[in-house]
């Protein structure tokens, strides 16, 4: 059932008014693509919570806020930028959706075999590559936010790893909203291309410099070619008043390996899609951690589309909801008729810490092949009583034992992060939310 929810005049004028000032406005194919997306957005608008996929997330406040698109970036304190950049990475930095060469790794400092650049530069230097990747993976073009992004994206990262190339350092792409970015809408688009047998690690991070209300609408398209291995982490630490709509759409060719992890801490309302189309014998891992407090609303939707045989996928999402926060998880595993020997597992675990918190979870299996192993499990509930007893028998009082185990519940996901600077950054976010545990970073 499609429930149309037409955009108001403000957003309609937004998508039509910007045609001549956007990146690549001289390029006819791109203009055509944007025009089509703008028309589509005018037609379908923002999703309504009457739609099945949006039943737990209401985006009408976004519409009411009448966000505008910033023509240029506001200024951000250098110290702030440095505080969000992870050590030991190549960097690309964007503020209010616009590229910041000053803080980004110069091309000359990059190793050979990789392209790490802003789309605004690549569109002139590598137009063919941009054309081949853009809008090539997104599975749900009918989604209003995707159309809006395609119609309006101001910039973003393009990362391409040549065949048989292993990039040793992770590549961090940081998106920051400045104070001037208040009440604006940043549309960014990232294109990631891991060519055959290449290896890379990409980290996307999202930050808000002030406690401002703004909207991030960020889409990443990922192609993992044969035998390539790509890790992709996404840390969302937006301002607590912001809105964040994100999506990672990936395609794995045969024997491709893709590991995508989401760490969600920020924004008043956030929604993140992680969709993968799996080729033959490919391997996909989708992990996530969401920790909500106050009135935060955090929604994660994943879709593992097993289109070919012999692929494996693992999915593990954990959530902790405190105060009046609400967590939403929807995971869908689809196994096509030809996708025999699929092995897919999905797990979602949640803890509610307050009697005003809520979690809604919808794990789904849609299976059309018979020789498959698919399973999902969900828990909502209390801490392991045996573990509480064990800690108490060691002298931790009951509250302390529970605090420790609550922290541990989340920390289990953090421990899986191999790259230490990222692990510590995620841990910082976690410790900020659980100061009472007395946990120290150096103990990990």
């Amino acid at each position, binding site marked *: 059932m499609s429930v149309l929810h037409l955009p108001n005049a403000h957003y309609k004028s937004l998508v039509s008014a910007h045609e001549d000032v956007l990146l690549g406005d001289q390029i006819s194919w791109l203009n055509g693509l944007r025009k089509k997306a703008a028309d589509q957005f005018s037609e379908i608008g923002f999703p309504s919570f009457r739609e099945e996929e949006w039943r737990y997330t209401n985006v009408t406040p976004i519409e009411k806020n009448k966000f505008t698109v910033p023509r240029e970036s506001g200024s951000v304190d250098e110290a702030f930028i440095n505080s969000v950049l992870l050590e030991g990475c190549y960097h690309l930095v964007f503020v209010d959706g616009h590229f910041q060469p000053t803080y980004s790794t110069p091309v000359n400092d990059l190793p050979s075999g990789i392209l790490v650049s802003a789309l605004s530069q690549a569109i002139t230097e590598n137009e063919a590559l941009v054309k081949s990747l853009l809008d090539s993976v997104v599975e749900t073009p009918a989604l209003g936010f995707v159309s809006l992004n395609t119609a309006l994206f101001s910039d973003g990262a393009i990362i391409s790893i040549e065949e048989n190339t292993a990039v040793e350092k992770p590549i961090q792409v940081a998106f920051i909203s400045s104070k001037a970015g208040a009440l604006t809408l940043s549309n960014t688009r990232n294109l990631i291309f891991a060519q055959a047998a290449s290896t890379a690690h990409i980290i996307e991070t999202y930050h808000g410099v002030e406690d401002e209300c703004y909207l991030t609408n960020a889409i990443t398209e990922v192609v993992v070619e044969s035998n390539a291995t790509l890790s992709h982490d996404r840390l969302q630490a937006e301002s607590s008043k912001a809105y964040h709509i994100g999506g990672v759409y990936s395609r794995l060719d045969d024997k491709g390996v893709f590991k995508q992890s989401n760490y969600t801490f920020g924004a008043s309302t956030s929604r993140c899609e992680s969709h993968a189309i799996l080729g033959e014998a490919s391997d996909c891992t989708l992990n996530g951690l969401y920790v909500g407090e106050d009135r935060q609303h955090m929604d994660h939707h994943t879709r593992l589309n097993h289109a070919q045989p012999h692929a494996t996928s693992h999915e593990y999402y954990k959530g902790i909801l405190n105060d009046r926060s609400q967590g939403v998880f929807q995971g869908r595993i689809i196994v096509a008729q030809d996708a025999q020997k699929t092995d897919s597992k999905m797990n979602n675990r949640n803890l*509610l810490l307050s*009697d005003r*918190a809520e979690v809604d979870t919808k*794990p789904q299996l849609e299976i*059309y092949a018979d020789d498959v192993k698919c399973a999902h499990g969900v828990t909502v*509930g209390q801490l392991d009583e045996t573990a509480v007893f064990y800690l108490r028998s060691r002298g931790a009082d009951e509250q302390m034992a529970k605090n420790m185990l609550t922290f541990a519940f989340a920390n289990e996901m953090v421990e899986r992060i191999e790259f230490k600077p990222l692990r510590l950054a995620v841990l910082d976010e976690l410790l900020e939310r659980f100061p009472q545990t007395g946990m120290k970073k150096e103990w990990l």
Partner: protein
Amino acid sequence: MSASNENLKNMIGQDYKDGFVTDIESDSFPPGLNEDVIRALSAKKEEPEFLLEWRLEAYRHWLTMEHPEWSFVEFPDIDFQEISYYSAPKSMEDGPKSLDEVDPELISTYNKLGIPLEEQMRLAGVAVDAVFDSVSVATTFKDKLAEAGVIFCSFSEAVKEHPDLIKQYLGTVVSQYDNFYAALNAAVFSDGSFVYIPKGVRCPMELSTYFRINAANTGQFERTLIVADEGSHVSYLEGCTAPMRDENQLHAAVVELVVLKDAEIKYSTVQNWYPGDENGVGGIYNFVTKRADCREDNAKVSWTQVETGSAITWKYPSVVLTGDHSVGEFYSVALTNNYQQADTGTKMIHLGKNTKSTIISKGISAGKGQNTYRGLVKVGRQAENSRNYTQCDSLLLGDECGAHTFPYIETKHPSATIEHEASTSKISEDQLFYCMQRGISAEDAVSMIVNGFCKEVFKELPMEFAVEAQALLGISLEGSVG
């Protein structure tokens, strides 16, 4: 496709044994639906004014409703003006008679279905209400039940004999506005069963309703209402069959269960409506709203269903756990073969404190069948210490069918403990080889494994039904695997 799949395909050729037509003269309304039809229906049943008004309210609301599209089943639009909303054997025209006066043709129909209504042949310990098309033709053991204070009769009779009870409880679990098919049912329901178990009474025998659709172009819209008063207990069974016809027929029933303090209802269904032929032609559309309200403390409801029939099954027997310490259970086996589609499951709505629910669902898909589990577990703000355990397993027989699992879990209390597990598997070559090496035929092996897969549900069924359910499953999978 592997060799075993090929064999499996050949073996899943099912034979619908209850597909005969009873040649009996019927009094039917012409197809069509409007307020006059409802007035005529109500007049025919000599209903009190309040019930006619209730029907009309439902109808007027139904006119404003859209047909729901969210399920995972596909079928062409139903033309509600093409359906006849009342059909009854002519011999029943003068209302319910004593059993001895029932048309022998009807008695023999039920005999053929294995449900003897005659005194001497009655199933020991089971009282039966037999519903044929739109009317109840007979209810057995009424006198014996009356001794215990149990009311068990057709809905029409209850409206006449016990209007206060009907007025008090009708529509209190599933309102006449609840959903599209429930509203339609409220407007046009023709008969069904009514059960009232008084305080503290443990119903001395199993109660059972046997539904039969016979007439062509007729929809069956029956309504069942069971009220279990304080501290009472009843086990209720229902069975369903229909002739083989090329056109689809609609069965849109409503079942309401009201469970008061410390009472328990165990409701079992073996649904074997005509599923259509191997090309997907014909068959019943089984769109049913079943819901129980554990209205007071320590109430318990257990739904057990074995769904092997119908072209499309679309139903979610649910429990609203209002009372503290109330318990809801749902055990289901749903089998889809050929072009059958099933979208079934349950809703467990935890409102009271210390409420507990268990869901065990076993879906078996064969042929081109599509089998969907859809379930909701909801824990409200006040539902302290509520618990749910859900297990949904799917078994795929063949590579052209589908098995889908769509649970919804909504939790608003930190003390809730919810566990949901789901898996999908097939009968492994190893299992088959092992059984066959031990001298068990492939058919028996499959039947054994499928029965093993369903064991947790079958054990919840009353004895007679468990045997029937196993046999049905065997027939539905006849000839499967090698």
